[in-house]
C-alpha cells in the first residue's frame, strides 16, 4: 500500500493551484465533517468547469481539492460524475486507475478508512454545486 502522503500531496497542500474564492462563479457547494471540523467550500464556473475552493482542514483534504480542480478542468458534468465515482472507488479499494492520473496519489488512503472522508469531501461539495448549476 502506497504512503498516503506522496510528495505530490504535500506539494499541493503547501502550494495549491486552485485555492481561494474567485470573483465570478456560477455555483457553489460545501461539505463539512463535524467529527474533525473539516470544511470545504467549492466554487464552479460552468465554462471550462473551472473550480476554486476554500478549505479548513487537513493536508489530505486540501490536496484532494486541488487535484480535483485539476482533474475536472474542461470536463462535462457527466464526466465529473464519472470521475467522482472512480475516485471514491480508488480511495476505498486502493487500486490505482490509469484514467485518474495524478489523483492516484491518494490511493494510499484506503488503509485509513477514517481518513477517506477527508479526500472525498471536496468531491461531494462539487457534486452539490453542480446540482445547483
Amino acid at each position, binding site marked *: 500500500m502506497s504512503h498516503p502522503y506522496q510528495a505530490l500531496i504535500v506539494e499541493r497542500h503547501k502550494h495549491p493551484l486552485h485555492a481561494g474564492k474567485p470573483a465570478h462563479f456560477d455555483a457553489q457547494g460545501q461539505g463539512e465533517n*463535524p*467529527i*474533525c471540523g473539516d470544511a470545504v467550500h467549492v466554487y464552479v464556473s460552468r465554462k471550462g468547469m473551472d473550480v476554486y475552493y476554500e478549505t479548513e482542514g487537513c493536508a489530505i483534504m486540501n490536496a484532494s481539492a486541488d487535484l480535483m480542480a485539476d482533474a475536472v478542468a474542461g470536463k462535462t458534468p457527466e464526466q465529473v460524475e464519472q470521475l467522482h465515482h472512480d475516485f471514491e472507488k480508488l480511495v476505498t479499494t486502493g487500486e490505482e486507475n490509469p484514467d485518474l492520473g495524478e489523483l492516484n496519489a491518494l490511493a494510499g488512503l484506503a*488503509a*485509513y*478508512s*477514517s*481518513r477517506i472522508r477527508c479526500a472525498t469531501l471536496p468531491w461531494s461539495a462539487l457534486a452539490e454545486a453542480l446540482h445547483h448549476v
Partner: protein
Amino acid sequence: MSATLETFDVAAIRDDFPILKQQVHGKKLVFLDSAASAQKPRAVIDAMCHVMEAQYANVHRGLHYMSEKTSDAFEAVRDKVAGFINAASREEIIFTRNATESINLVAYTWGRTALKPGDAVAVSEMEHHANLVPWQMLRDAHGTELRIVKITDSGEIDFDSLEQVFADGKVKLLAITQMSNVLGTYTPVERLAKFAHEHGAKILIDGCQAIVHRAIDVQAIDADFFAFSGHKLYGPTGIGVLYAKREILEEMPPFMGGGEMIASVSYEKTTFAKPPFRFEAGTPAIIETIGLGAAIDYVNAIGFEAIAAHERALTEHALATLGTLEGVNILGQAQDRGGVISFTMRGAHAHDIATLLDRQGIAVRAGHHCAEPLMGRLGVTSTARASFALYTTTEEIDALAHGMQRIRQIFA
C-alpha cells in the same frame, strides 16, 4: 469443526469446546443448561485472545493502524450479523449488551415516542421477564396498557385469545418470544407478524432461544424488531443484538447519550448520528463483538440444517426417555418444539433434583426460569429444565434419565 449434514460428528464438535472435558464432583460434566448460556468453542476463545494479543485499540476515528484494523474487524461483524439474520442492511444491526437491553432500548425509545398513553402492548403468557418487565415499566411510566395473550394447555399461542386481545384496535405492539425458554415451544412468527401487521401493530420478536437452533430470516418473518444475546449462541457475554427495520430506526430517538452516538455537540444543541450509531453510546463491547463474529462463523460452518436435525433427534430421544419415567411430568407438548424440556417429579422439589443431579455431574437448571407468570399458568412454583446444544449427546440424555431414577429411589 468437521460437521456437515451428512456427517454430523458430535465427538469432533465436542473437541471444539474445551470445557466439555471438565469433571464435576469427580464425574464427567454433563452440561444440560445451554439455554441459560451456552459453552464457547475454541474459535471464539481464540478470536477474543487474538484481539487482545495482536490487534487492539478503541474503535472508530482512531487514525492509527491498531484502531483502523480493530474498527474494521468490529464493523465486519455488523455485516456478518446482518447476513446471519438476513437483514436488508447493516445499518439495521445495533449492538447491545444482551437481549434484555435490546428490548429495553425499544421500550425506552420507540415505546415512549411511537406509543401514546392508552395504546396497548401485547405479550404472551410464556414470556421471559426480559420481554415482560420492560413493558410493565413502560405501562407504569407512560400510561400504555399491557395485555396478555393466553397459551393453550399444550403450551402454544391461543389464537382465539390473540383475536380478543387485538379486537379493539388498541394494540400497537405484539412483543413475543420465538421459542419459550421453559416449554421449548416455537411460536409461528410469520403468522404472528402477519396478524400484527393486519391489525395495525408492529411485532417485536424475542429470538434469544430460537436463534440458537434455527436459521432466522427477519425479512421473511417480516419482523419489525428482533432481539438476541451472543452468549446463548456460543459467543461471549456482554454482547447482544437488536435488529429493527431501517425506517423505524430512523424515527427513533437515542437511548443513551455519550460518545459515538452524536453527529455534533454544543451546549445548546446536540445532533445525533444516524442509525446504528445513534443507539450505541460509548466504547462498545469490542472484544465481545469480534467474539460473536467468530461464534456466527462457527455455527454457519456447521449449518442449521445439521444442527436442527441433531437437536430434533436429541429432543425426541429425551421426550421418549424422560416421559416414561415413573413420577416424572414433562411440561408442554407443542407440535413444534425444540430442545428445551421442563419437568417436575412427584415428591421431589426442582431444587432437590438440580442439586442431586449436580452430584452426578449433570447440570440442569431449576426454578422459575425468569418466567414467574408462566409458572402460575402451569400450576407449579418451579421446574427442572434440561436444554440441549449442538454438542449434546444421546448418552448425556441417558445419563439424565438414569440420574432421575436414582433421585426417585432416594425420595421414594
